[in-house]
């Protein structure tokens, strides 16, 4: 439905987007992740036809944005960053204006405006002027504008930015629900949103795609994925880590906490080990040594860790590792 091929955008000598390619199909909710200035908004502006790419192509529903922008734009709903809206209009006037430009007339227009107002919980401010709205309401007004024509493709640039936790939750629910029969691409730098709403995530850093997969797959890339945390009662941590490191299934250990009579350690397997192999060997060791194992948990990868490790320059990554406490 969306096909982005070798997209490049240069602002002067700076490459804001550098050779980005991906496709999104119906039913997918694609999360576009990246630190500030990564090029998320720039990519979305090219997908929606607001700015022309320096090189590369974008097609929406088979319509090339450069050659046939109007048919492509008809398929799109777009929520730009910072949710702009005409401040001299009322919410209703604004939505009616956009509906009219979407080619909706008469009863169809009324129905569409009413539906969008309802979906975005705007009933309380329908006849209020946009410049008197709180940030959350203004944001949802602009959101409402993007779904007026029930578009098959939705591009949302930071749709939960500036909303309170309840509103954030509502918007995520809305995205997930609409994502069942639409293509949705939304950008964020909040990682929980990937789990909360996405079927797939792309991580972009300094204009380049650095990861592309389901949230599950991305988590697998975490160092933490497959590591096991265990809590042992009554063994000094030095003995514990020494014994643990003698195991062939253990590559590294990290003491998480030392209580008076219990120690919590995380052990990392060497590169890829079969699922459960590490925990099985840990059980065996505990039995052999008569350790009192009070807790054993296989870690799932953590997205924030993946995110940090692949969007930071290598030098910073090294420094951060050194600063870790209790690393043995």
């Amino acid at each position, binding site marked *: 439905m969306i096909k982005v091929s070798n997209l490049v955008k240069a602002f002067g000598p700076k490459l804001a987007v550098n050779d980005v390619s991906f496709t999104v199909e119906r039913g997918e909710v694609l999360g576009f992740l990246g630190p500030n200035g990564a090029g998320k908004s720039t990519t979305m502006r090219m997908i929606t036809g607001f700015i022309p790419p320096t090189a590369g192509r974008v097609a929406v529903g088979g319509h090339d944005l450069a050659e046939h922008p109007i048919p492509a734009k008809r398929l799109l709903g777009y929520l730009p960053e910072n949710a702009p809206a005409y401040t001299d209009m009322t919410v209703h006037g604004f939505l009616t204006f*956009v509906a009219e*430009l979407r080619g909706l007339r008469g009863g*169809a227009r009324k129905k569409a405006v009413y539906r969008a107002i309802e979906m975005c919980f705007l009933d309380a401010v329908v006849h209020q002027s946009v410049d008197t709205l709180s940030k959350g309401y203004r944001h949802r007004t602009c959101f409402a504008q993007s779904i007026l024509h029930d578009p098959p493709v939705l591009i949302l640039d930071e749709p939960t930015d500036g909303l309170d936790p309840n509103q954030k939750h509502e918007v995520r629910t809305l995205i997930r629900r609409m994502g069942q029969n639409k293509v949705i691409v939304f950008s964020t730098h909040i990682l929980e949103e990937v789990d909360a709403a996405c079927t797939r995530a792309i991580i972009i850093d300094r204009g380049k795609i650095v990861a592309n997969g389901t949230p599950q797959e991305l988590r697998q890339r975490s160092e933490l994925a497959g590591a096991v945390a265990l809590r042992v009662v009554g063994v000094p941590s030095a003995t514990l880590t020494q014994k643990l490191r003698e195991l062939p299934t253990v590559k590294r250990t990290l003491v998480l906490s030392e209580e008076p009579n219990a120690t919590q350690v995380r052990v990392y397997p060497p590169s890829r080990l079969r699922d459960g192999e590490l925990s099985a060997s840990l059980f065996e060791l505990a039995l052999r040594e008569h350790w009192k194992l009070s807790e054993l948990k296989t870690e799932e990868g953590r997205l924030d860790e993946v995110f940090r490790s692949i969007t930071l320059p290598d030098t910073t990554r090294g420094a951060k590792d050194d600063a870790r406490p209790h690393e043995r």
Partner: protein
Amino acid sequence: MPDPMSAETQLQSAPAAATLAVPAAAEGEHTHALANIWTITKRELTGYFASPVAYVFIVIFLLLSGFFTFNVGRFFLRGEASLASFFLWHPWLYLFLVPAVGMRLWSEERRLGTIELLLTLPVTAWQAIVGKFMASWIFLGLALALTFPLVFTVAYLGDPDMGMIFCGYLGSFLMAGAYLSIGSMTSAMTRNQVVSFIISVVACLVLIMAGWPPITDELTWAPPWLVETVAAFSVMPHFEGFQRGVIDSRDVFYFLAVIVFSLFTTGVILRGHRAG
């Protein structure tokens, strides 16, 4: 016209095809263009009258027209039933008032970021440019039309040449459009309305001066052909005919050409900004 809603619904249930059918087929493209322009014009006009600025502008316009006509133009001392003293001042009156209307056209869109909304809707840039321009032109036309009591006054005082008055209004309206289109162009250059206003006043001033006799008469050092060529680009000689009650197609063409050129340039500037 096909119902866009039902077309959307079809589109939702269709299997993933290579190219999606788009609601609203190409046959209605022209009516679409006009409908889009009109929708944008309507929105802009509503926007003008939603704020007190529009009413303040109209009052200032009427007061200044009255002041120039009666005090500076000595309407009553002329002893003739015509609006010559009214139209005479329009190039100067517009010099400040029209850029004040035009300055917000695109700078406001850029400041608010709504330009990103507008240009990602299924409208072309030229539809948006024309739509916004038309709104401001209609607004000025309205302000101009509100000077109608003057027409009644001269009709009451004497026996004016109504054709001449009509020509004056037509020329004045065209000139306002030319100034406005320049305002559209300068407002596309910057998101700062004050900067847009100043550039626009300077540009309009150049258009006046280039063919204003007190200036051109001083240019004795320049070859006459050069002075005449430059003067041909000025609004003054082209507005003069209208004041005398003559509609010359070349004068009409001049104003329309300025408008088309400036609006085209507006498009080029906007495209340049988007390209980065």
